[in-house]
């Protein structure tokens, strides 16, 4: 099976890719740096001349310049995207090439898993839609929020306004003026509110949390609400394998997980959200509060014993679905918790854990004493950075790609990519 990562440079050692200081000598204005997934490119919004902005990528600057450029993000395939405007017209630029269509505003870039397709929210003449690879939906709407995109980046859904209502017209609002549009086509039914639209992995089916009155919440799938209604509900998610729809809902006993309108977990919690399926769809975990103010992860309804006072987030399954990890924060200190066991170290800040391909190790971007670096199973690599990006594992799981901006020997700043061999690091 083709793996993009097989073609990355996995030779151990550090390599300076871009001298950020030289950028600053060439441009009077340089924003924060972004790194490509393979670590070979660094990019930032820069000022090219007064009132003109563009994207600096390693030693080159995009040929076109713009009145404004923002939200630079690398796609998974290494192409650089940015939202740009010239003469009041907005569009998406990819590696310096602009979509043919322009809009009065464009925002919220989303990229498919392989980076081949891009979706942005757009507004033209006060009407709203999603644009997929530059083509806006045929139908547009008076309002648009909560963009959701399928895994392949070819399908988009959003909450849209379906009926007009005047200022302070609370009666019409409560009759239901919102629904979900999928690829521009609106569900048959409108609701008082709709939130958190979700698409099945193939983008064919859709679901959202809905409010049918000010007091009744449910989950609508392809526009049809579950028979059961609840005093509150959070975001629905599709099981990636069997297509069932799961959502946290509030019951008289507390929060629990429902599947296709029926109770899935026996246990109730003080809070439950951010549920996540294992890659094979056989297991589901969620962030829960076991008691007021004590947070952990419950896997298939069973909470871990370790709890955190501030919060738990960033649930991540190992590739084989056998293990789960999350970030936890207690008394202001962050760590990673794996299968209920916290790392033996804590940090000022921690970013989401990344599993090794064999599911034996977790790595994460961490911040400690003002510097950023990468930790594996709680142990820090030797290098420290001003800023580091999410680490990546080599396909065989023996090495780690660390990308970061560090203080160079010249006391300036440089962007480096560094491949760390796990055997050297963990001994």
């Amino acid at each position, binding site marked *: 099976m083709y793996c993009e990562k097989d073609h990355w440079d996995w030779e151990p050692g550090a390599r300076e890719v871009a001298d950020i200081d030289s950028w600053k000598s060439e441009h009077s204005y340089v924003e924060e740096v972004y790194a490509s997934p393979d670590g070979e490119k660094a990019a930032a919004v820069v000022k090219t001349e007064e009132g003109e902005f563009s994207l600096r990528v390693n030693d080159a600057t995009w040929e076109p310049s713009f009145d404004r450029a923002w*939200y630079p993000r690398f796609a998974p395939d290494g192409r650089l995207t940015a939202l740009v405007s010239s003469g009041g017209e907005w569009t998406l630029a990819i590696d310096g090439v602009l979509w043919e269509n322009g809009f009065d505003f464009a*925002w919220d870039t989303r990229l498919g898993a392989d980076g081949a397709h891009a979706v942005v929210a757009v507004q033209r003449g006060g009407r709203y839609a999603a644009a997929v690879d530059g083509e806006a939906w045929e139908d547009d709407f008076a309002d*648009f929020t909560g963009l959701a995109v399928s895994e392949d980046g070819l399908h988009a859904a959003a909450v849209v306004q379906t009926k007009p209502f005047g200022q302070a017209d609370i009666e019409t609002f409560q009759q239901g003026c919102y629904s979900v549009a999928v690829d521009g086509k609106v569900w048959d039914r409108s609701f008082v509110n709709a939130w958190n639209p979700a698409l099945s992995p193939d983008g064919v089916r859709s679901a959202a949390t809905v409010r049918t009155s000010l007091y009744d919440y449910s989950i609508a799938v392809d526009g049809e609400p579950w028979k059961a209604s609840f005093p509150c509900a959070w975001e629905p998610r599709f099981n990636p394998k069997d297509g069932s729809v799961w959502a946290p809902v509030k019951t008289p006993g507390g929060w629990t997980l429902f599947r296709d309108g029926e109770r899935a977990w026996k246990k109730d919690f003080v809070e439950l959200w951010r549920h996540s399926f294992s890659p094979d769809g056989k297991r589901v975990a969620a962030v829960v509060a076991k008691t007021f103010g004590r947070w952990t992860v419950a896997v298939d309804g069973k909470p871990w014993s370790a709890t955190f006072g501030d919060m738990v987030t960033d649930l991540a399954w190992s590739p084989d679905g056998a293990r789960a990890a999350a970030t936890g924060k207690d008394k202001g200190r962050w760590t990673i918790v794996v299968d209920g066991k916290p790392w033996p170290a804590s940090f000022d800040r921690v970013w989401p854990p990344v599993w090794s391909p064999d599911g034996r190790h977790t790595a994460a971007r961490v911040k400690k004493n003002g510097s950023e670096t990468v930790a594996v199973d709680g142990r820090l690599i030797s290098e420290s950075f001003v*800023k580091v990006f999410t680490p990546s594992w080599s396909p065989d799981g023996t090495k780690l790609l660390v990308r970061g901006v560090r203080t160079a020997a010249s006391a300036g700043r440089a962007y480096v990519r560094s491949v760390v061999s796990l055997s050297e690091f963990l001994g």
Partner: protein
Amino acid sequence: MSQVALKKETPVSDDGMLKGAAKLTPEKIRETVRKVLDGETGARLKTYAAMCARCGMCSDACHFCLSHDRDPAWSPAGKVKRTIWELVRTGGKVDAEFILDACRIAHTECNLCKRCAMYCPFGIDVAYMMLVMRRICHKLGVTPQYIQDTAHSHSATMNQMWVKEDEWIDSLQWQEDEAREEMPNLRIPIEKEGADIMYSVIGPEPKFRAQLIYQAAVILNASGVDWTMPGTPGWDNSDMCMYTGDNEMMGRLKRAHFDTAVRLRVSRIVMGECGHAFRSVHDMGNRWLGYRQPPVPVIHAVEFYHEILKQGRIKIAKKFEGPVTLHDPCNIVRGHGLHEMAREVVRLTCDELIEMHPNREHNYCCSAGGGVINCGPPFKTSRVVGNRVKAEQLFAAKARGAKTVVAPCHNCHGGLEDIIHHYGLGMDVKFLGDIIYSCMEKPE
């Protein structure tokens, strides 16, 4: 409490309340009251109801009562007696007329300012009881039209002013462009993941008071902190659903706000000069979600200004001229004890501070808070007339030389401006950010 009540009721003219009340039946009222009292309250409400000795100590704590010549009908105990106590006593056997009256009292004649809780010998929290009454009104569909519309905006957009996703980002970029006329390389960093600070504001800032975003950007840039603002819903820290009794929406709003900060992985949220939003993140919204404290630390603008001034991150070029007086916003003073910090910021930035009395945690509310100003035009007169004592306070400060009122809270601004206009006081109202921006050394 032996004084005869003088209060004369004017008929409710609010469309939202009237239409909601018209749909009520005795059965629906009883059922709803029972569900809320049995399912959502407990020992706290029962204890408060049982403990009140009807001593009247709360009367002198309430600006409404003081402004109506101590008419007991306006006293906190009097208001509770005519609302939630009657529902507890009768088990909800009341008619639609009662609910209409109770809604008016709970929503427009109590600012939930908690001053009375300090004066009650038992510490009875009348604001809590008024919120239970508002919760029942919400469940009955009897809520003032304008604040209900604001709650609708919150639910549809996650902000209180119907600001659409692109309008928000466009407003930030517009203010950045404006500010670059003054500081060419100034930036309002949107969606800068990993920044130290997420700066959050309330909906009226992009809608009506965009200059506050401009000023904040100048202050944040000059102070050299690493900051960002979200480019997604979740940017608005305000929460009128907390005041309409729509607790589920309150939780959804706070979750959006906290989740945004967690997604951006900032170390803390700095919020602009708003009082009720602080109550929502620190006390009510967070706890409805199951958080003991906010998952990401939140500091109020007063704390942030104090920090950057004391650390010398910004310097004051010339102090604000002319004596000022300081209004203590209830939610950050009684609610969080920021009164001395606010005074220190004023002393560091202004020539002279003239105190109003009573002050600090004993301050009089602006009468706009607690969602009262958000109930809109039908209740403006009663709100302003009901705070004559604040006008007298302001007048006394003015008589001693104060020309400017510093109020580090949005609702307080609205309330004080209305009072100043109604009573012809001729004073300016300013945010601390206005003062700092106008007096600070600005980098080129």
